[in-house]
């Protein structure tokens, strides 16, 4: 490689590094975003190291010790109606939630970005069709749409994830579409097209990277929404089925224990609250950092 190429390369990578680094520095200043990140990291660690952190088998029942109070009988957070350790179930529940978040966001993102790219880039009939479809999807309040999809496919964790994923598509599609529309007429696109780049290359290599910021923000917030939606579906019996230790499912039978076993009602909800809060804090912080940039 000639020295010129070498310097160009280092300059390029240093530029990329500095932009990312700059964003990171800005983000660091935002204390609530850092708190969110901290929570997310803990969440992921708990999910990954669940077997090491749990004290009991999450689905092992022990009817004799059912509804033990926290710190009683070796149950850190108490036990539920079937004598299962609440603490271990919550730990493993992080795993489930992480998986749910990842899969649903992936579904929404992949299909949504794809549809958004097509609609924005090719326009015309594609745009109208896709936007109509999106509008109809958005005509349903999302809980209802997810419920309908799950009711159609049959209640299960897998179907709940599919439903939530599908419901998330419109948001990504819209974001990508408007970004594409904005970028389509930019100078650099015209230049690259005149240099012979194919549509595919333009879409994925040139335009898409520029739409990344809002997508990343939406994905982070998507995790939050996915955990909440899946909890809601499981609570209604339309999602995860027993004995899977999903946080929402743990709350579904909790109503009867409102007077007798407050720990059964409280702790799974707190777990949901903290994890969702973490994603929301971080997502908000990301948005603050990335958005004013876009305004510039």
């Amino acid at each position: 490689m000639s020295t010129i190429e070498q310097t160009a390369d280092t300059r390029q990578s240093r530029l990329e590094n500095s932009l990312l680094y700059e964003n990171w520095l800005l983000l660091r200043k935002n204390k609530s975003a850092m708190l969110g990140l901290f929570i997310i990291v803990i969440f992921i660690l708990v999910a990954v190291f669940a077997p090491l952190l749990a004290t009991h088998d999450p689905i092992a029942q022990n009817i004799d010790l059912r509804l033990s109070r926290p710190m009683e009988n070796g149950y850190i957070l108490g036990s539920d109606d079937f004598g299962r350790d609440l603490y271990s179930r919550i730990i493993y529940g992080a795993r489930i939630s992480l998986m749910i978040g990842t899969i649903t966001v992936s579904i929404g993102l992949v299909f949504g970005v794809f549809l958004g790219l097509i609609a924005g880039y090719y326009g015309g009939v594609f745009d109208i069709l896709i936007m109509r479809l999106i509008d109809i999807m958005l005509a349903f309040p999302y809980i209802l749409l997810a419920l309908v999809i799950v009711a159609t496919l049959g209640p299960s964790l897998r179907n709940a994830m599919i439903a939530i994923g599908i419901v998330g598509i419109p948001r990504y599609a819209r974001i990508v579409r408007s970004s594409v529309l904005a970028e389509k007429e930019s100078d650099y696109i015209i230049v690259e097209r005149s240099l012979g780049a194919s549509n595919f290359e333009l879409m994925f290599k040139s335009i898409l990277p520029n739409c990344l910021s809002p997508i990343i923000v939406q994905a982070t917030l998507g995790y939050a929404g996915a955990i909440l939606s899946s909890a809601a579906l499981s609570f209604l019996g339309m999602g995860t089925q027993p004995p899977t230790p999903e946080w929402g499912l743990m709350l579904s039978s909790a109503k009867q224990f409102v007077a007798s076993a407050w720990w059964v009602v409280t702790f799974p909800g707190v777990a949901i609250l903290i994890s969702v809060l973490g994603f929301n804090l971080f997502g908000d912080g990301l948005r603050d950092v990335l958005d004013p940039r876009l305004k510039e």
Partner: protein
Amino acid sequence: MTKYILKRLLLLIPTILGIITIVFFMMSLAPGDPARLALGARATPEAVAELRHEWGLDQPLTTQYLVYLKHVTALDFGKSLKTQEPVISEILARFPATIELSIVAIIISTVFGILAGVISASKQYSALDYGTMFGALVGVSMPVFWLALILIMVFSVNLNLFPTGGRMGIRLIFSPITHFYLLDGLIYFFRTGSMKYFLSALHHIILPAIALGTVPLAIIARVTRSSMLEVLRQDYIRTARSKGLAERVVIYKHALKNAFLPVITVIGIEFGFNLAGAVLTEEIFSWPGLGRWLFSAMNARDIPAIQGGVMVIAIVFVVINLAVDVLYTLLNPKIRY
């Protein structure tokens, strides 16, 4: 202006058509034969076939669809498989409960949400501001049904301040008139001079309304705050101050009126979500509304009921969104279509 409204109304039709179509085809995709489900596991094949014929299930799908469409336009949603009553009357009977709950919830959300947002914005960067916004974020991160459970646990069971469910005291002999219990309570007051019906209805609606209204409250607070911040940056606010107006006047008269517009949009949308998503709250508080009914229909695989319920809710949601859009353009003195 009227042209714009007409245009939007016309656009409504393909959307509603789309909703009906999706609902229909989804239900037909559902596994299981409705006729067999209705008759039970021990039904003979002939009985099943007869019922299928009676219900028109042996026709090609497109024919079924057109037949369905015809019925829907006549507001005939079929009969509930569970109760054999017309779906439409089941829906109408439960609608007021959901509407009433949603209205009370949205009033709570609006009043407190806007107040929180305005105060936060006017004291930007203060501890109050950060605290309120963090609180709002927590509010948005909470599962509604969990909040409902906690509210019941703390306020109903432990503090005994509120009932755990239902719309009206069980021991009160009460025949609903409008089916809006708060309204009916007032009517009873005028007739009998007794406030106990109104108070009981109020007593029952507070906790579920708080549960239902918390998330919208948080959202409204956030939107109000950012809208106010935007407005407070404007030149005309500086002009208002330079005229010697009291700060309170500057904020609540000059700023808020301008900041209000996006907030109204959010209020409308959240109201729509309340109507549609009340299913969780209704479940927990045993609130006899549309959401709860739809949910039990889903559990019972009561196809006509599910179809009817989902459609009605979706259409109401769409209409509310349209109303919000129209309201926005009406209120914005700068946009004239």
